[in-house]
């Protein structure tokens, strides 16, 4: 059983599983967003978590002091995601019946005094946070390792946990993509959200039904592409950034045979049976064509589809192309992952001469 879980936790399998679970969650949010489901899920998961914690290797990784925040964030996100779905399900059921969302009932629109209503809530939150931090600080001492030694690198050398999603992307992309371009797209994309999402509905209340596209996209990026990758990078990556299952001992001598092939090598050597051309642009021509097609042809083509036409009609051309560019930037990660797993594809464009590997 433990071996089966170790086997399934490998991103090759767990990433598609997470994606499918995500789709099921969003599709059946009205079933998931009920109190019965929440109680059932908690009751069902408690023995599983307890059983997980009986394993020494699993305890070692989750109780490492700097990993505690990730345990906390997993619990909080599970709870708050369920809670959001619960509120969305309530509101969407009301909206279907022609009623207003809960936040817009006359009772909730009524104005109340800041003192004592809001000040009291804030005080309680502050006291709660203080108690939580002090207890956390007493139980877990801040770790301190050996003094800095620039000549000896620990293995694995990991970035702070909140950047481990980016470090996990390094498996699939070169640093200029994983460390600079994709984070840039994330930041610009986040800031662009209010300007490309012109849907006036869902302002100030929980709803999925009235803004499905925004919800589906954001939640996928946030839960699967960001949080899930951080969990993988923290808990499942050991020495040499090799995959280790949750019950697996971090054996430094674990050997993983990995041989990845560039698209140009597929093209010239495998498919055309020719030597690699000397001209580097000609050598990488297929990858360049595919990349240009990805970022130019797909937007132009999708603008002609029914789906694209509807968005352009609602938001205008400029917003549409920014949106589709950000969407393609986001989907480039799962696409590259799947290509790596299915075909051992290393780079679509491999131009180490220009430090341009994609």
């Amino acid at each position, binding site marked *: 059983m433990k071996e089966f879980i170790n086997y399934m936790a490998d991103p090759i399998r767990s990433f598609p599983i997470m994606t499918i679970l995500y789709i099921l969650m969003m599709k059946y949010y009205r079933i998931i967003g009920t109190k019965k489901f929440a109680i059932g899920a908690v009751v069902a998961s408690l023995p599983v978590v307890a059983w997980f914690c009986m394993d020494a290797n699993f305890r070692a990784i989750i109780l490492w002091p700097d990993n505690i925040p990730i345990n906390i964030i997993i619990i909080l996100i599970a709870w708050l995601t369920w809670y959001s779905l619960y509120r969305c399900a309530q509101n969407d059921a009301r909206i279907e019946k022609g009623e207003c969302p809960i936040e817009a009932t006359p009772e909730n629109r009524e104005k109340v005094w800041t003192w004592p209503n809001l000040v009291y809530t804030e005080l309680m939150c502050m006291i709660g946070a203080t108690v939580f931090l002090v207890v956390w600080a007493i139980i877990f001492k801040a770790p301190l390792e050996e003094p*800095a030694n620039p000549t000896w690198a620990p293995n694995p050398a990991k970035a702070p946990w909140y950047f481990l999603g980016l470090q996990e992307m390094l498996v699939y992309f070169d640093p200029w993509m994983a460390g600079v371009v994709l984070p840039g797209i994330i930041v610009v994309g986040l800031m662009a959200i209010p300007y490309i999402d012109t849907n006036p509905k869902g302002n100030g209340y929980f709803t999925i039904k009235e803004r499905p596209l925004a919800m589906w996209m954001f939640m996928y990026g946030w839960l699967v592409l960001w949080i899930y990758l951080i969990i993988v990078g923290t808990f499942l990556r050991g020495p040499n950034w090799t995959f280790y299952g949750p019950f697996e001992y971090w054996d430094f001598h674990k050997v993983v045979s990995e041989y990845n092939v560039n698209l140009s090598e597929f093209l010239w050597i495998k498919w055309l049976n020719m030597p690699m051309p000397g001209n580097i642009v000609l050598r990488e021509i297929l990858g360049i064509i595919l990349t240009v097609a990805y970022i130019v042809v797909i937007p132009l083509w999708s603008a002609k589809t029914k789906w694209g036409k509807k968005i352009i009609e609602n938001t205008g051309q400029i917003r549409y192309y920014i949106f589709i560019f950000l969407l393609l930037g986001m989907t480039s990660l799962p696409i590259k992952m799947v290509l790596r797993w299915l075909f051992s594809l290393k780079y679509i464009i491999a131009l180490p001469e220009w430090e341009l590997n994609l």
Partner: protein
Amino acid sequence: MAKKGVADYIRETQVWKSIFRHGPPTDARNRAAVVAGNVFLHLHPIKLKRSGVQLGYTWCMGGLTFFIFLALTVTGLLLMFYYRPTAEYAYNDIIALKEHVPLGIMREIHRWGAHAMVITVWLHMFRVFMTGSYKPPREFNWGVGVVLLILTLLLSFTGYLLPWDQLAIWAIAVGSNMAKATPFLGHGGPGAALAQIGDFVMVSDKNDVRFQLLGGRFVGEPALLRFYILHCVFIPLVVGVLIAVHFWRVRKDGGISAPL
């Protein structure tokens, strides 16, 4: 007539009246005065919609982020008394802090608080997205919030180096190696090789963005000093200013979001 308690006598003293210039906040007039007349409380409006005070709607994550930021400022200031940002002293100062300060949990609160602030700021963004609160008229404030989120990560990241242990320098080495690959600006990034005139290399490991960030070609003493100043002075100042803008705009954009 009700009997006067000790509290009532205190409320009637000149000292009390000089500090709190209103009566007990039990009626409408004084409830307005207590919020409007207090420099900390006047961040709030005097009244707000009931949906905006419910924990189920706000999750209090933005407020908690601000509170943890203040807690980190205080604990950070206390830590600065014990800490010297040089390769010679930094690590030993942390050891001394551990061994010579009785019952000290300031470093723990600072470290776990830093993690907690990253969590609360992410969950704040999550809540704001789920309730569509970035929609007009709050588009600009969402952008300010994204910048604050990035700055929170940078604050935490620069602080990571300061204990000067193996975890610190190698985490920063991994992080800053990414800067090396910046297109055109990092010597290992695409396009850097194009910036070459004859034999003169314009972007090299001696002048690229990673060099500017670390003050050197590897994580050494200049990097420690830079990260210390960024962590303790520069980024907190920028964050402070942006928090002011963020809170101001929450008020000016109509308070906590609610259905239109």
